[in-house]
Structure formats: C-alpha cells, structure tokens
C-alpha cells in the first residue's frame, strides 16, 4: 500500500472488499441491498472527511500565502534597509579616506615644524655657547668686543 493509500487504509480495504463482492455476483437481493446501504454510508462518511480536509487544506494554503506575502514585505523592507546602510557605509568610507589624507598632511607639517625647531634650538645653543665661552674663558676679548660695539675704542 502506498503512502497516499495508507492514509485511507480502512476505506481502501472496504473498497477492495466491495469490488470482490461485486465481481462474485452471487449475493441475494437482500444482501445487495445491505451492501449498497453500507456503501452509501461509507461514501457519505468519506465525503464529509474530504470536505473537512479540503476546508483545512484551503485554510493552510491561505495561511501560507499570508506568511509568504509578509515575508515578501519584510524582504523588501530589509533590502531597502541594506541599500541605505550600504550608502551610509560608502559615505563613511569617503570620510575616513578624507580624514586619513588630512592626518597625513598634518604629520608632514608637524615633521617640518619639528625640524625647524631643532634648527632654531641648535642656533640658540651655538649662540649661548659662544657667549658663555667668551664670558667665562676669554673675558678680555669679550670686553674688547663690547667696547668696539659701543664705539669706545
């Protein structure tokens, strides 16, 4: 018995028995009447079951369709959200690139300033060094130099 038939095993068995009885054809009128009555009863029962199952299947299909529509709506909403996020990401990437460029420029300027400061410091050290040298170790020449500057000599 296939899976489809196994769901209606009782009905399939009954049908098989009814067919065998019909093929034999040896029943009395009363037996035929009873068998036919039973067949009608079973048919009515089966019809009710089919009606219920059809109704339920339709309900399930409607539920599935509703769920599918909701999924479609959610998919669209998500797609548009993803697009928005992608655009936002692109803008942020541009901003990051711009900031990185600005940082590089700033580093260059800082490097130049540092170099200038070093040069100025070196010059200052040189001047102070010379001054201290003449002030403490070669005072005579310092005095002569000051006099020369002031026009006393």
């Amino acid at each position, binding site marked *: 018995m296939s*899976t489809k038939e196994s769901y209606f095993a009782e009905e399939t068995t009954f049908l098989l028995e009814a067919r065998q009885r019909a093929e034999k054809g040896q029943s009395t009128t009363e037996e035929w009447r009873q068998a036919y009555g039973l067949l009608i009863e079973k048919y009515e029962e089966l019809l*009710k079951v089919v009606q219920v*199952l059809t109704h339920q299947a339709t309900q399930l299909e409607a539920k599935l369709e509703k769920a599918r529509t909701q999924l479609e709506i959610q998919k669209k909403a998500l797609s548009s959200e993803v697009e928005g996020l992608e655009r936002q990401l692109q803008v942020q990437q541009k901003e990051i690139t711009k900031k990185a460029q600005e940082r590089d420029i700033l580093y260059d300027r800082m490097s130049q300033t540092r170099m200038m400061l070093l040069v100025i410091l070196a010059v200052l050290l040189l001047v102070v060094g010379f001054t201290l040298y003449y002030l403490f170790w070669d005072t005579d020449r310092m005095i002569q130099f000051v006099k020369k500057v002031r026009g006393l000599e």
Partner: protein
Amino acid sequence: MRNLVIEPTSKTPKVILNADLGVFEITGRSIPEDAIGFYRRVLDWIEEYSKSPLTETVFKFQLEYFNTSSSKCLLDIFRKLERMHKNGHKVVIRWHYDADDEDMAETGQDYQALLDVPFELVPV
C-alpha cells in the same frame, strides 16, 4: 497497559497517553512528512486502550498548527474515540485552541460537526 509518552520535536507534537493517571494529551505542532508513521503508535495504543478503558476518558488536543495528513490521522483518532463512545464508554474530546486563532476554532467546529461524540471547544 504501558503508557505512551512521545517527546515533542520541531515537527511532531508531544503525546502523553497515561491510563494510570488518566491523562490523554496531544499538544504542540504536527507537521511530520510521514504522519501515518508517527500516529501509528498512537492509534495502536488507543485501539488497545479501548478494550478496557477507564470510567471516563477525557482526551485533550491542543495543537498550534498541523498539516493535512496529520488532520486525517487526527480524524482516525477521533473515530476510535467515537467508537468507544458508541460502545457505551464515557468519552470527551476537548479541543483547546488559541482564542485569537479563528482557523483553529473553525477546524474544531468542523470536527465537532463530523463526529458523534462529546466534543468541547475550549478557547485558551
């Protein structure tokens, strides 16, 4: 007779058939591909139980969702319970459903109309 307890899965319901405690329940979701395979044990158990049932059998069904093949198996269970009722045993089927789920209420009404056994609709 031995009790039957089947733990639920994502596709099959929880089944408790305990004649000692008088608990008969099928709850959860029923969407197995092989519904007849799943419900075979339940049907066999009820068939065995119907030979010497308790004074009163209250069978609770609380399903949130089930496929068409499960529906046919449920009908087979109902038919067995209906037969018990016709044989003079006290049987009550309680169909519990979410009060907001109109479809499940309607399904219960369909079964109720189809069966000749006390069938109560219980919104929860």
